[in-house]
């Protein structure tokens, strides 16, 4: 029996009817996910990225048994997604961003107790478990207040621990930090890291905050229009796009000798150079796929200029995702096969 979530050629086609005039309807099909294969191992955060409408939420709903795939198959720890749906439900849970998905008339404690009953969580020690979960997200003092009195952040924190009530092996996190303030989002990231590293849980994360994905995910799948565009570690994905690294050098002035030295670096390496006057002096930006910071610094120093500031900037994951999502963009050199 294989460990982890393994999906092969997962496809979801939504079919709907659109009214045309009074009596005529036209059947329409939308392929939300198209032959997606991925795996979510335990003990690791796996990212699922893409622009809006890429098929991320549909994928999560299929893997959590809420949606039936139109084609393809998936298993969770060897259990078949369709045949063993009820056994899978005991192993998974979902955390989505936003204030919904908890009962506002119930207290925080009652919400957790309610869902614990639905999951038939072992009654022995349940009270302590609920207390500990509430404490872990700073809701111990508000445990017995109705949720309608909670702030947005508190509701979302409650949502997070609700997703942990059945001690799931795999957690689907769909935009979990949406709208959270910075300290709470940071706490959530710490919690996610702890859950994977210490408790061995597998997490499938979708988020629009790419810095968060970059920080948490060991492996990322990029989907666009329901299809897998690329996969790999954040570093792999950044390499997949021919986005340039940048070396930014701030100089007090730009003597002719430095200019010549920089032109020589550009001629040898094929780098592009921009010179821009700024209040402090001149900002020189050198763009190239490889890191030229050493060569640029050396050339400037040999030409006798003093460097006020030097920055070497990697392409961000955000740039890589945008490039990957932009079908047909020439700088995308490698896609998932």
């Amino acid at each position: 029996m294989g460990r982890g979530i393994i999906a092969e050629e997962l496809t979801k086609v939504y079919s709907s009817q659109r009214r045309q005039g009074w009596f005529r309807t036209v059947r329409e099909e939308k392929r939300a996910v198209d032959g997606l294969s991925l795996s979510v191992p335990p003990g690791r955060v796996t990212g699922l990225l893409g622009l809006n409408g890429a098929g991320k939420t549909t994928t999560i709903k299929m893997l959590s048994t809420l949606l039936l795939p139109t084609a393809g198959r998936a298993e969770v720890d060897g259990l078949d997604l369709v045949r063993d749906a009820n056994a899978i439900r005991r192993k998974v849970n979902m955390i989505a961003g936003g204030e919904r998905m908890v009962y506002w008339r119930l207290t925080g404690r009652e919400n957790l107790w309610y869902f614990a009953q639905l999951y038939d969580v072992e009654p022995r020690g349940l009270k302590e478990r609920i207390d500990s979960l509430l404490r872990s997200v700073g809701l111990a003092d508000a445990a017995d207040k109705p949720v309608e009195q909670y702030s947005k952040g508190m509701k979302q924190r409650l949502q997070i621990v609700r997703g942990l009530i059945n001690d799931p092996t795999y957690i689907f996190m769909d935009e979990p930090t949406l709208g959270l303030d910075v300290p709470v989002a940071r706490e959530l990231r710490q919690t996610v890291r702890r859950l994977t590293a210490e408790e061995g849980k597998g997490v499938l994360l979708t988020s629009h905050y790419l810095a968060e994905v970059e920080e948490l995910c060991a492996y990322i799948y990029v989907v666009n229009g329901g299809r897998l565009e690329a996969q790999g570690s954040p570093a792999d994905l950044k390499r997949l796009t021919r986005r340039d690294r940048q070396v930014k050098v701030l100089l007090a002035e730009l003597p002719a000798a430095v200019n010549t030295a920089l032109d020589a670096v550009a001629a040898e390496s094929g780098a592009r150079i921009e010179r821009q006057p700024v209040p402090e002096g001149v900002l020189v930006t050198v763009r190239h796929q490889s890191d030229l910071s050493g060569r640029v610094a050396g050339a400037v120093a040999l030409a006798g200029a003093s460097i006020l500031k030097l920055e070497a900037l990697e392409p961000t994951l955000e740039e890589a995702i945008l490039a990957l999502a932009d079908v047909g963009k020439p700088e995308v050199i490698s896609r998932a096969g």
Partner: protein
Amino acid sequence: MPVRLVAWWRPWRRVMAAEVLKQHRILFGTRFIYFSLLVWPGVNLATAYYGFKPFLGAAGLAQRWPSVSDPRTLFLFFTTGMLGYTFFWSLVQAAWQFSWERFHGTLELVFLSPASRMALVLANGAGALVQSTWLFLAFACGLTALVGGLNLAHPGMLVVAFVGLLVPAVAWGAFLNSLFIFSRDSGFLYTILDEPMALLSGVRIPPQALPALARAAGMAFPLSTSLIVLRGALLEARTLSDLWPRLLFLLALSAVLVGLAAMLLRWGEAHAKRSGSLTLF
């Protein structure tokens, strides 16, 4: 065998407890309960009573409708009618409210859990019933004690009357829940099940006053037979042996409703999983 039974029953019991708590928090002491399930049926009761009262002495009326032989029996006829109606109507409202959980995202989470779907709809109905009807039940009992005129063959018939109301109501609730939660367009039932159910079930007029076709249609509502049992046991001194065919019919109708609920749940969930209609966001 008992161990297996306990293992099977435990998750059901826990789902029931969870739903009862939820219904308690949502309904208990709310204005909704006071107005929709106490004041409104109370006003209806008064309207029906004072609307009929002037005709009490009409020639030949008592022969066709023995309950109107005196003001007290007429009042008890309407009280039992409104009590039964409150039971069944509260379940229509509970099912309608349950369907709103789709918009709040909680229905999706409930269906993400391994909880028995049948336990959920039964528990939701039963929980709502207890939370919604205790007030009017107390009101009706108080009124009856005040007015007097109960005609019981045996005190045990109180239990028979209550069970004859409760069991079909829970089955009715399960059926409605399974109907409402998977359909975006079932809101029209809210209207259909209000006044037509009251009319066809004989809440304010005796079923024998209706045309045969309407009487036959009324039999589809368990409330019709529940009211016959309730009034027979409380007002007409009927015994268990008098009422057993009706009770048997109620039992069969309840079984059919639960069976339909199971079918609808299976079909509805399968459809929602294909179409993605479990949530509306």
